[in-house]
């Protein structure tokens, strides 16, 4: 019934399996509630103009565009969701049956109703005044070029259909469900990664393959989509459990063997990252370089937020200080002083400057705790940007004009790294990412790392145990600042100019979302988070693979963050420790239910749920 997840995931107590419920025994209020939420969501998505804008981007040629995909997703999701049963100790879980299908149908129907009503309203009223996207184009899209009544009928039908599919998914056994999910991911992935795959294939001389897979005007061919889905489905069924086996085997490895396995994996990843750009064209390399810059930023913020538990909402400040000081030190056009240092020499000075900036910003801020600290860092992030923008300092930093004509980064006279050759930028970023990974990894497993953990857990007690919390947190702040400055220095050389507008608060937020999404405190998770979010959706100003999403990026980031906080606060790839922190109570309860309480022999103390220790 439930996935047999790792023992760290709570709520996996084995439940009784009861026969399916009768087809119409629903809690109808729940169905209506879930359906209505989806209906409102559908209308919102439609009015956000996403479908119209994204209609250009084909997923599967000729049947599905990204625009329609966003409208199909919600009914499917609620159709699946309504069949969810909370597993509780001693409460039977019903085997899914016709009931789930009917529920999915109903939910989907209501969800589709949202669009049906919207279509009718669109045809008869003009609300363009408050709702800018209230347009005939939207109606046209909803009605597939027909009349409004057609739209109403077809969306009811589509909603019901998708909802039913969602309900049917509940009926599938684990293997077939995995196959379906793999197929869907494979096709969607192929479509999303289209430009990347095409570009790499071109570099490797495999155009023949991609010509067959993709249509010339974008999108996966209908036939190839079916083929791809088929192959992936078979692979999923055949390889069932292999991946998990491999992973658990890896987890069981001890000592030297484990180090070897990890080293092997890392070498493989490094080799891929070094070889890949050689085959990639300029655009792909540009994308890789941008993702790399954000990985670097995210790794830096991870030290502050993930390891030391300081919620820093102004991290962009260090990115800005790094960029600006690089600009001032290397550019000939820098307004006040222009030492025109070589990039590498400047970098040393930049590290010192940002380190000091970290100290100066950190010293007053670090004594605060929790929410106050978050707000104050947010303020400092803005202050730094406004300082660079101000008339007062425009003699130094050029105000809103910024500093332009920053020269390329000269690396020991071997190469020059600048935006004109993104491949070199990527390699440079890669080196600094490796450095950042090494730094976080070493520090986490040291006396300082343990002190950070203790501070994160309970600052008062950490202090009573002899940890100078101010110093320890300041160190995290400074390490984070320095790592951020690397990114800033590379950014300055890459773009060739710095403006205050590049360092909006939005950058801080995006980096934070990346860290949270990936899994705070877990290096691999943070990297994966940056790769997925920045790579697919794009950074604050940088386009991702789904260029069409740029307009809606913030909406999607926001929605993702909310969903993540509700459903999986530990992130995509959580660190074991973070998961524990977030689910400690539940896990302690579960352990108690399973009778695994640590009983220390001496006692005849009555068993009871363990007392929470944090006051």
């Amino acid at each position, binding site marked *: 019934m439930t996935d047999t997840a790792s023992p760290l995931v709570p709520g996996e107590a084995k439940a009784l399996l009861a026969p399916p419920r009768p087809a119409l025994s629903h809690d109808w209020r729940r169905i209506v509630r879930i359906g209505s939420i989806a209906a409102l969501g559908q209308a919102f998505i439609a009015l956000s103009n996403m479908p119209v804008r994204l209609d250009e981007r084909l997923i599967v040629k000729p049947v599905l565009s990204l625009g329609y995909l966003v409208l199909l997703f919600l009914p499917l999701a609620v159709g699946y969701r309504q069949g969810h049963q909370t597993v509780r100790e001693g409460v039977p879980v019903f085997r899914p049956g016709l009931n789930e299908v009917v529920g999915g149908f109903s939910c989907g129907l209501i969800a589709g109703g949202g669009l049906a009503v919207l279509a009718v309203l669109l045809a008869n009223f003009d609300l363009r005044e408050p709702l800018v996207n209230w347009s005939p184009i939207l109606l046209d899209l909803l009605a597939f070029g027909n009349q409004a009544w057609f739209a109403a009928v077809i969306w009811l039908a589509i909603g019901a259909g998708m909802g039913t599919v969602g309900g049917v998914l509940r009926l599938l056994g684990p293997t077939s469900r995995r196959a379906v999910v793999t197929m869907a991911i494979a096709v969607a992935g192929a479509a999303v990664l289209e430009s990347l795959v095409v570009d790499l294939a071109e570099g490797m001389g495999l155009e023949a393959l991609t010509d067959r897979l993709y249509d010339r005007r974008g999108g996966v061919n209908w036939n190839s989509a079916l083929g791809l889905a088929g192959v992936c489905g078979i692979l999923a069924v055949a390889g069932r459990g292999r991946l998990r086996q491999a992973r658990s085997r890896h987890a069981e490895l001890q000592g030297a063997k484990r180090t070897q396995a990890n080293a092997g994996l890392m070498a493989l990843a490094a080799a891929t990252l070094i070889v890949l750009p050689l085959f990639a064209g300029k655009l792909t390399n540009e994308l890789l370089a941008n993702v790399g810059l954000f990985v670097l930023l995210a790794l830096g913020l991870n030290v502050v937020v993930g390891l030391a538990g300081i919620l820093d909402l102004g991290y962009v400040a260090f990115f800005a200080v790094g960029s600006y000081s690089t600009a001032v030190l290397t550019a000939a056009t820098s307004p006040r002083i222009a030492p025109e240092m070589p990039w590498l020499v400047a970098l040393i000075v930049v590290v010192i400057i940002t380190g000091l900036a970290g100290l100066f910003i950190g010293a007053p801020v670090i004594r605060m705790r929790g929410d106050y600290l978050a707000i104050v860092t947010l303020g400092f992030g803005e202050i730094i940007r406004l300082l660079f923008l101000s008339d007062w300092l425009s003699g130094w930093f050029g105000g809103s004009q910024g500093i332009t004509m920053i020269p390329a980064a000269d690396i020991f006279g071997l190469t020059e790294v600048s935006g004109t050759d993104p491949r070199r930028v990527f390699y440079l970023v890669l080196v600094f990412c490796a450095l950042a990974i090494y730094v976080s990894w*070493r*520090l986490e497993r040291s*006396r*300082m790392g343990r002190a950070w*953990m*203790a501070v994160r857990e309970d600052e008062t007690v950490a202090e009573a145990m*002899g940890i100078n919390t101010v110093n320890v947190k300041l160190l995290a702040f400074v390490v984070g600042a320095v790592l951020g400055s690397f990114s800033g220095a590379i950014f300055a050389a890459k773009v060739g100019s710095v403006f205050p507008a590049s360092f909006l608060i939005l950058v801080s937020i995006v980096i934070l979302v990346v860290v949270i999404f990936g899994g705070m405190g877990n290096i691999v998770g943070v990297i994966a988070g940056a790769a997925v979010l920045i790579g697919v959706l794009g950074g604050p100003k940088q386009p991702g693979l789904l260029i069409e999403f740029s307009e809606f990026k913030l909406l999607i980031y926001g929605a993702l963050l909310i969903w993540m906080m509700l459903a999986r606060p530990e992130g995509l790839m959580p660190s074991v420790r973070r998961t*524990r922190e977030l689910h400690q109570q539940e896990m302690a309860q579960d352990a108690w239910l399973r009778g695994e309480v640590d*009983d220390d022999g001496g006692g005849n103390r009555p068993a009871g749920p363990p007392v929470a220790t944090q006051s």
Partner: protein
Amino acid sequence: MTETHAAAAIAAETGPPLLETKALSIDFGGLHALNQLTFEVREGEIVSVIGPNGAGKTTLFNAITATVEASAGDIVFEGRSLLGLDPNQVTSRGIARTFQNVRLFANMSVLENVMVSQHCRTKQHAFGALLYTKAFRREEAEIRQRAEKILSFFGTRLVGYRMDQPAFTLSYANRRRLEIARAMATQPKLILLDEPVAGMNPVESAELTGLVGRLRDEWGFAIVVIEHDMGVVKEVSDRVVVLDHGEKIAEGDYAAVASDPEVIEAYLGKGTGEK
């Protein structure tokens, strides 16, 4: 046990005061949590602090460890005042404590809890860790060894597989033990134990009582213990100090204090007599 007690008691009589509070007062708004308290602990001594609920016992610990600020008076440790120090500085001077409401680093492993508490006795900074120097590795090994040694003081309970378990999986009694282990790891001269046997069953509390004696005999700590259980107080203490409403109403060995009419009244008058 009684012999070593006697020997230690003699040493305690003659040794210099390790910790002294001089006319210490703590006010919370209008409430005098501690009033002109004069109190001392000598090297190698085990002092019990008793008193009804709200008497100010925990507040005394908080004042010594700089968690709350003294309103008047002075606290002197090894001849130097502790006033104006931060809690972590007090710990580095050599005073460690446990908490009445057990406050472990719940998501850190048992071993890590003890390792991190050696922070103020170790000095490898970030650069050592980054360069992975010999000194760093040596210190890490030492930290680990010391932690294991401290944990093995509690028998088999906190060692073995349990060392790598997160602290929140421990039983209640083991959490209390781990708190003591953590205090030991700061390498103190004086340990303040706030109700170490609260919530334990008689078997466990008898065992912990023995442990308090061993802490002094084997590790040489001076110990102040707040305790409500009179059996435990009688067993461990060289000297008993009774607080009521922030004032010291009696002091002396257990027998003398237990028969003091003022003490009996303080307990019975409050209606929270000994259990």
